[in-house]
C-alpha cells in the first residue's frame, strides 16, 4: 500500500518532448511507472521512449485513460496546462516546475479544490511510491521499499533523509516532496491524513525548513488526528533572520515569532513529535519507535 501513486496509476507526462521531459520519462519508465501518454501541444503523433504523444490532455485521457499527470514545463505554460489537465478529469497533478508565479498557484489551487483535484508542488522533486512508481525527478537509488512515509519541503533533503533511512535498513512506503514555495497546493496536514489512513505506513517523517508555518499547522493536525508516530527534522537553525535561503518559503520572519526553527520545534515537541537536531538523528529516532526495547 501507499499514498497518491502506485504501479497501476496511469501516468501522463506533460511536456514529454522537452529535454528534461524526455530524460525523466526514461528514468520513470525504468523505475516501473505506468506511463501511458505524453502531451506537448503541436507534437501529437510522435513517440518518446515508446510512449504516444498527444496534442491535448483530453485526447490522452480519452485514448489512454490517463489519470495522473507530471509536469515538466516552463513556468509560463503552467496555468494553461493545469486548467487543461483539471478540465480533462486528471485527478492527481505533480508540478516539478520551479518559479511559478504565486498568483497563478493561488488561482489554480482554488479552481482545483472546487473540482477535488490533488496537486503536489510546485517546486517539488515529485512523489515516489518506493518499488512501484515515481512521478518526478528523484534519483531511484536513494530509496528502498518499506513502511515509513516521508513528507519533505526540500527535494534534496528528502533524498538525504531517505538514503540514510535506507542505509540503516529502514525502507519507505511513499516519499512526497510537497514543494518548497511559500504557497503550495497540498499542505503537510493533508499529506499526514493520507499517511494516517494508509495501512502500508507505520510512521511518518516530516522534513521541514525554517520559514512559513507549515510545521506549525502540522502540529495542530497531529495533536488531533495522528495515531502513528511522527519524527521530524527542521533545517536551518543557523539561518540568519530575514534572509531568504533559496526557497521562497524559507525566510525567517523574526518579528512575527512564527516560522523560526525554535517555534516550529517547540510546536511539534509539544504534541509528542520526536524532533531531530541534525539529519542523521532522524534514523535513531525512527529506530526508537519501530524497535521498542
Amino acid at each position, binding site marked *: 500500500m501507499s499514498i497518491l501513486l502506485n504501479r497501476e496509476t496511469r501516468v501522463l507526462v506533460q511536456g514529454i518532448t522537452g529535454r*528534461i521531459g524526455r530524460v*525523466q520519462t526514461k*528514468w520513470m519508465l525504468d523505475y516501473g511507472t505506468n506511463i501511458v501518454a505524453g502531451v506537448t501541444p503541436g507534437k501529437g503523433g510522435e513517440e518518446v521512449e515508446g510512449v504516444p504523444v498527444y496534442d491535448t490532455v483530453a485526447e490522452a485521457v480519452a485514448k489512454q485513460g490517463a489519470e495522473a499527470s507530471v509536469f515538466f514545463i516552463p*513556468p509560463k505554460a503552467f496555468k494553461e496546462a493545469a486548467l487543461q489537465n483539471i478540465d480533462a478529469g486528471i485527478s492527481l497533478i505533480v508540478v516539478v516546475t*520551479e*518559479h*511559478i*508565479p*504565486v*498568483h*497563478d498557484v*493561488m*488561482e489554480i*489551487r*482554488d479552481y482545483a479544490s472546487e473540482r477535488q483535484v490533488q496537486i503536489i508542488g510546485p517546486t517539488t522533486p515529485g512523489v515516489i511510491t518506493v518499488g512501484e512508481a515515481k512521478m518526478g*525527478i*528523484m*534519483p531511484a*537509488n*536513494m530509496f528502498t521499499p518499506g513502511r515509513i512515509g516521508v513528507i519533505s*519541503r*526540500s*527535494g*534534496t*533533503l*528528502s*533524498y*538525504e533523509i531517505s*538514503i*540514510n533511512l535506507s*542505509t540503516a535498513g529502514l525502507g519507505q512506503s511513499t516519499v512526497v516532496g510537497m514543494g*518548497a514555495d*511559500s*504557497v*503550495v497546493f497540498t*499542505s503537510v496536514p493533508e499529506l499526514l491524513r493520507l499517511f494516517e489512513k494508509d495501512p502500508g505506513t507505520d510512521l511518518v517523517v516530516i*522534513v521541514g*525548513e525554517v520559514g*512559513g*508555518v507549515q510545521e506549525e499547522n502540522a502540529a495542530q493536525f497531529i495533536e488531533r488526528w495522528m495515531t502513528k508516530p511522527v519524527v521530524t*527534522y527542521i*533545517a*536551518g*537553525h*543557523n*539561518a*540568519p533572520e530575514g534572509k*531568504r*535561503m*533559496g*526557497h*521562497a518559503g*524559507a525566510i525567517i*520572519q523574526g*518579528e512575527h515569532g*512564527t516560522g523560526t526553527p525554535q517555534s516550529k520545534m517547540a510546536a511539534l515537541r509539544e504534541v509528542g513529535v520526536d524532533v531531530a*537536531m*541534525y*539529519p*542523521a538523528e532522524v534514523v535513531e529516532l525512527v529506530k526508537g519507535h519501530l524497535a521498542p526495547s
Partner: protein
Amino acid sequence: MRLYEFEGNDLLHREGIPVPDYALAATPGEAREGAEKLGLPVVVKAQVLTGGRWLAGGVQTAQSLEEVEEAARRILGSSIRGWLVQKVMITPKVDSVREFYMAVTIDEYSGTPVAILSAAGGVSVNQIARERPEEVVSRYISVIKGLLPSEARRMCRGVGLEGAEVSRVANMLSALYRVFRNYDALIAEINPLVRTSEGDYMALDAKVEIDDSSLYRHPELNLSLDSRIPNTLERKGREIGVTYVELDGDIAIIASGAGLGMASMDIISRRMRPANFLETGGAITAELMYKVMDLVLQKEGIRAVFINVYGGINPIHEGAEGVVKYMKEHQVTVPVVAKALGNHQEETWEIFQNNGVHVVTDVSTEKGVEQLARLLESDK
C-alpha cells in the same frame, strides 16, 4: 522584489489611489530644487528597502530650503538597517486629520490573499493587532471572486467608519487589491492612508513587494536589481541564478537545494563556521558549478569548500566537471570536500578523485563534515 516607496506610489497612482507629488534627489542641491518646485513645507524621506526609517532619522520635515538641504545632507549617505541611502524623496507635507492602515497580502497559514484594514494608521499594525485587536479587521479573499465592493464596505464598517467615509475608504481598499493582483504583489501596504484637512484621501507611504517569479510579465515596471541587493556577492549569486547568502565564517558551502544547504549549515556550525549559504537550484550543469566555485572563493579567507549535491534533473557528473575545471584553471589550494550522490555517482567520484577533490562516499552529511574537520586539523 521589494519596491522603493516612490515606485510603490507610482503603482498606487496607476490604480487610482491619490498620492502626493514627489521629487527624487541624490544630492542636497537636487533636494532643494525639488522642494522649490513642490512648495514648502516638505518631507524628506530616505528611499531604502526596509522599514524603521522614522526611528533611524530617515524621515524629516523641512520648513525652509535650507532645512531641506540640511536634512538631505544628513540622510543621504547614512545607513539605515544596513542599507546605504542613495536617494531621498521630497514630498509636500500633508496635514492629516485621520489615519488608516490598509494592506493586501498572502496569509502565511492559509496561503490565500487577505485584506487588512485598521482605523489606526501610522504605527505598526502588529502592535495595534496585539494591543487593540478590535481596531483591526481582516478578511480572506478568493482570487476567483476578488474583493467584492460589499465586502470592502463591510470591512470599513467593521473598524467603525460611517457615512461617506465607508465608500471612500472601501474604494481605496478595492484599488489596493487591484495593485496586489495586477502587479503580482506579495504585499501591497499603505501606512498611513490619510484624510487630509481638505477631506481628500491620500496614501503617504507605500510598501509593495513583487513576486520574483512573475517579473517576466511586468516589463512595464522596468525594475532593475542593481541597488536592491546591497551585498556584492549576493547580487552576483542572483545574476548567475543561485541563492548566495554571506555569513561570517570561513567554510564555503555549495549545496543543491535550500533544505540541504541549511542542513549543511546546521552541521558545519557545530564545530566550524560557514562562510556562506549557497543553493544551486535543481538543474546543475558544468557551467553553473564553475561559476559557483568562482563565487564562493571570492570571499576573503576561505579555508575549505564543502560541496553537498544530489543529481536530479541532470546527472551529477556534469557538475563535477565544472568544479575540477575551475580548480585546474585557478589553482585552488584550499581543500575541496565533495559529497555527490544520484545518477552517475560513481563516475562523479572518479572525476573528483582524479583531480584532488576529497570525496565523501558516506551517505550522511554528518560524515562528510567529519571528514572535512579531520582534513583541516591535519593541515594545521
